[in-house]
């Protein structure tokens, strides 16, 4: 039971942290923030990695894991790049001024 109870604490504290992190967001940043947070939710790639590593020679599982990893990385890499593209437009204005 120890992992489970520890994990529940982690879940609780992580949620509280998440609630605290975003206090006031200027409307300008709603879209980038959403897309950035979205990229972070692709952290399931770690679960997909673990799945592949532990599946040994089990081919169907390897395939499932690999597809899952692909989806997650699509989310992560796409998410971060698109967020960066948006934010780059804001910062360009700043430096030129």
């Amino acid at each position, binding site marked *: 039971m120890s992992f489970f109870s520890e994990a529940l604490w982690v879940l609780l504290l992580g949620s509280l942290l998440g609630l605290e992190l975003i206090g006031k967001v200027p*409307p300008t940043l709603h879209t980038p923030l959403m897309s950035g947070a979205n990229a972070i939710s692709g952290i399931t790639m770690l679960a997909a990695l673990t799945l592949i*590593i532990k599946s040994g020679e089990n081919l169907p599982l390897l395939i499932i894991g690999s597809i899952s990893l692909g989806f997650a990385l699509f989310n992560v890499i796409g998410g971060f790049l698109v967020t960066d593209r948006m934010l780059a437009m804001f910062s360009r204005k700043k430096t030129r001024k």
Partner: protein
Amino acid sequence: MTFIGPIKFAIDLLAVLLLALGIKGLSKVRSAREANRLAAIAMLLAAFGVLMNSQGTIGISINSWVWIISGTLIGGLLGAITAKKVPMTAMPEIVALFNGCGGMSSLLVALGVALFPSSEGSDGVASELVKNFSIVVSLFVGAITFSGSIVAMAKLQGWLSTPSWTQSKARHFFNILCAALALIGGIYLSIDGQNGLFLIVVASCLLGIGVTLPIGGADMPVVISLLNSYSGVAAAAAGFVVGSQLLIVAGAMVGAAGLILTQVMCDGMNRSLVSVLFGGALGTSSVASGGGGGEYTNITSCSPEECALTLEAAERVVIVPGYGLAVAQAQHTLREVTRVLESADIEVTYAIHPVAGRMPGHMNVLLAEADVPYEQLKEMDVINPEFPATDVVLVLGANDVVNPQAKNDQTSPLYGMPVLDVQEARTVFVVKRGMSAGYSGIKNDLFDLQNTSMVFGDAKKVLGDLLLELKELGVGSKG
């Protein structure tokens, strides 16, 4: 090899710290870009940690490497290409698409573990019941996130319309049925770890569709934000499944932060989360009840030429960009028009309603793309007192956010929504494709006012004509 454990632990801690700093930094304009990179580095670190730890403890077979690398390359490349290619106007769709894929990933992990239970368990991940329950949650939330996000994307792209049955009571029945089936499947799976697996997946997918399909275009950002929060929850659930605390923390943070962001968006649109989710598309329902209806009696329309003449004589112009501008992708043409005006010493500012564009903050991104200086963008609270001192307001494809009913008419469904007081300005031009109602389906009293003129046409075309007229008048050419 005993020091691998502590190193992995340290990497995980560092990754969590960077992720938290990343989310925090993303909520401030100054630090946002660095914060985004910080979060990306954190993810890279975390992945490295997992690989290193596994290599050092149980080893990673060549076979696994092949599958890891191929999955990474295909997913990563497609993601990178999509991110580079997508036009800024399609941002809401693309966030929904990415989000759906994150949900799919969690779903697949849980599916893999559920189908082949033997592969897992070396961690001693608590009891069978707990593990099965985690799988159920991961499947359920992952499936809803996936199907909901894909429907959201399809609706925003215009591939899907709102079927009429979804506006009736039938959809509640449908959704409750799906939820009940998913619950039954979940209970089965929790108990014996085998049966009910596909029942959950199918029923949750249908539930995601059933909940998202009735929601109208302008509410969609709220839904995407909520689904984004769900994908965090799905990640946390996957963390329980594979026994990764890092996953749980990150998932929980995104889940909670997404919830806050959703709430902030709802506040900006004067909508409650409950009404977004269960109220259906505002448009259809309010037209049916006739709320805020009535005919237009005093519409003045004019040509771009007249509009240009008035603009030439103005000293202070405020642009109100809206959804229509975003859809017409007219932000670059708009920028050219404002350049001409500025060169004639006409003061130009932009009034940005909190929910302008297709998603809160989207308009800022679009205007930034078109090189509009950041300082010229004024938020609603700042610009509202300035309208009485404004000569010309140019409303471009915005409707509900400039409807005075929201202030004056207590019976209007819009009543109480924060709006831009454009009617206070001396002259208002509304560029609009036709007299169709805005997203809310409500008549806009602004169009009937004496000082309002309609310029009919697609925003991009009208702005193009306006630009020609202004140049013909010689505006700005002397300066």
